[in-house]
């Protein structure tokens, strides 16, 4: 058998599994989105683009889309800003660097569901630490429209800033030290070096972190679902949560799949950007 044939044989199981758990279900979801399919009524018939027409008229869908976009934009911006501060700190300090690096991994290692529960307790209106520490009127963070989504953003930022910090730290470590030293000799201050040398050179790492986190934020489910369940009054309902409720609670597999495909399309746009950023440079040598 030629090496080429053996190679194909070796990748075959992985290809088969990927086809079964990724390709088949994504095509299945697209196909289902063209059906009226309600499990409990044993109803399943082809309806063409009826579900899609409904989707474009569905105020709840547009509201979920706006919620998801807002959540992603605010959370990812905050994560990049905080992550950059953490990365600079990790890169700059010598004493206690190990301690901080270890501490940064704690939120990363905590399951998302656990972090949502943990913050649910911190945001508890009666006994929560947040309500008691913040001055002024007591606000029920999780029960007030406008506040609840920001509480969810806090959870996401806490949980995922470490990941951003680690990517940016790896980026910082790849910048030659001499550049900063030379600039310092020429009389540039620390802020000037950060702005004119570090940040431009860090741009690829920042871009990758932004798109990677953006992808995750656009499909967010666990953190928000456990923290608020999409409430109050659906103000924290993201695309994934709306699709999940339609699929699994209402058992409407046709329309639920339509929302899921819409989510997929939104994520795909970001994914395409990511692939374009990363893949060409990693072709086999």
């Amino acid at each position, binding site marked *: 058998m030629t090496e080429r044939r053996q190679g194909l044989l070796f990748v075959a199981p992985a290809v088969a599994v990927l086809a079964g758990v990724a390709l088949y279900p994504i095509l299945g979801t697209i196909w289902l989105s063209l059906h009226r399919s309600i499990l409990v009524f044993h109803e399943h018939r082809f309806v063409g683009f009826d579900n899609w027409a409904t989707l474009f008229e569905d105020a709840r869908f547009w509201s979920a889309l706006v919620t998801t976009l807002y959540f992603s934009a605010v959370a990812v911006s905050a994560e990049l800003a905080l992550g950059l501060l953490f990365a600079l700190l990790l890169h700059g300090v010598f004493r206690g660097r190990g301690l901080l690096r270890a501490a940064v991994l704690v939120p990363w290692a905590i399951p998302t*569901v656990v972090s949502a529960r943990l913050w649910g307790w911190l945001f508890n209106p009666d006994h929560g630490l947040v309500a008691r520490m913040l001055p002024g009127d007591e606000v029920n963070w999780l029960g007030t429209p406008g506040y609840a989504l920001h509480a969810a953003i806090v959870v996401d930022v806490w949980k995922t800033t470490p990941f951003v910090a680690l990517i940016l730290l790896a980026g910082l470590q790849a910048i030659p030290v001499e550049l900063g030293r030379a600039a310092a000799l020429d009389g540039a201050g620390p802020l000037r070096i950060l702005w004119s040398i570090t940040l431009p050179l860090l741009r690829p790492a920042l871009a990758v*972190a932004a798109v990677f986190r953006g992808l995750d934020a656009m499909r967010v489910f666990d953190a928000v679902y456990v923290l608020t369940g999409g409430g109050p009054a659906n103000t924290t309902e993201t695309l994934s949560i709306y699709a999940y409720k339609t699929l699994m609670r209402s058992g409407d597999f046709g329309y639920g799949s339509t929302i899921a495909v819409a989510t997929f399309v939104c994520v795909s746009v970001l994914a395409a950007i990511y692939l374009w950023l990363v893949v060409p440079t990693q072709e086999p040598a």
Partner: protein
Amino acid sequence: MKRLGLLLAMTAALTFCVGPFLWQVLTSLRPETEQTRLALPTRPTLQAYAEVFEGRAFAQVMLNSFAVASLTTLLCLAIGALAAFALARLPVPGRGALLAAALGASMFPPIATVGPLFLLIRALGLRDQLAGLVLPYATFALPLTLWVLTAHFRQLPPDLYRAARIDGCTPFAAFWRVLLPLAAPGLVTTGLLVFIFSWNEFLYALTFTSSPEHRTVPVAIALFASEHAEPWAQIAAASVIVTLPLVILTLAFQRRLVSGLTAGAVKG
């Protein structure tokens, strides 16, 4: 002045990262009557931990998660290592396309695959079975395995493979006897990442299981409730129990995990 600033920044960063979790630990140790206090518990108690383990249900849930995460890890390492070796060292046609496809699949929102997978699992009679979780978990675990391990196999000197072939090894023997043992650190990194991601997975586990005795840890914690008020101390205790092994594992292997996590992200 500068040192003071750094010290403040360090303290703030440490509080941000560890503070919320420490508060959860404190909550789990407080007796019911001190739950509204801000100060350290005066009479710390392990009662909440005892209550969590009452009646075996939670131990069962942890066992479920351990089984699902271990099986997913083994499955992905077995088929992933072989494929990664072929992608790195053999002239497989379309290997760039396959790696790109795997990366694409890992970015699917799970909600976009959950419907057909649900119908498939139901048709196969695997609904509410732990076995029904392992294959869906490959959606995110196998692409990760392929990417990290392909990178690892590429880092091994190509001459090793050629020498083994000249000495009479078949490609599989060269993989099994020579390259795989050398890729052991990569297997550990990948295995840990897959195990942690599988342990933490929520949406598939929530959808594909229904009875309490087949739940995994995240589902059990999300649905933790009692007939009275929210049992905050118990939730906190359960959270600490399921998180502590992960935190210890992460800290013990931190360098490997960080290199595995950032490898795909910054080479570009």
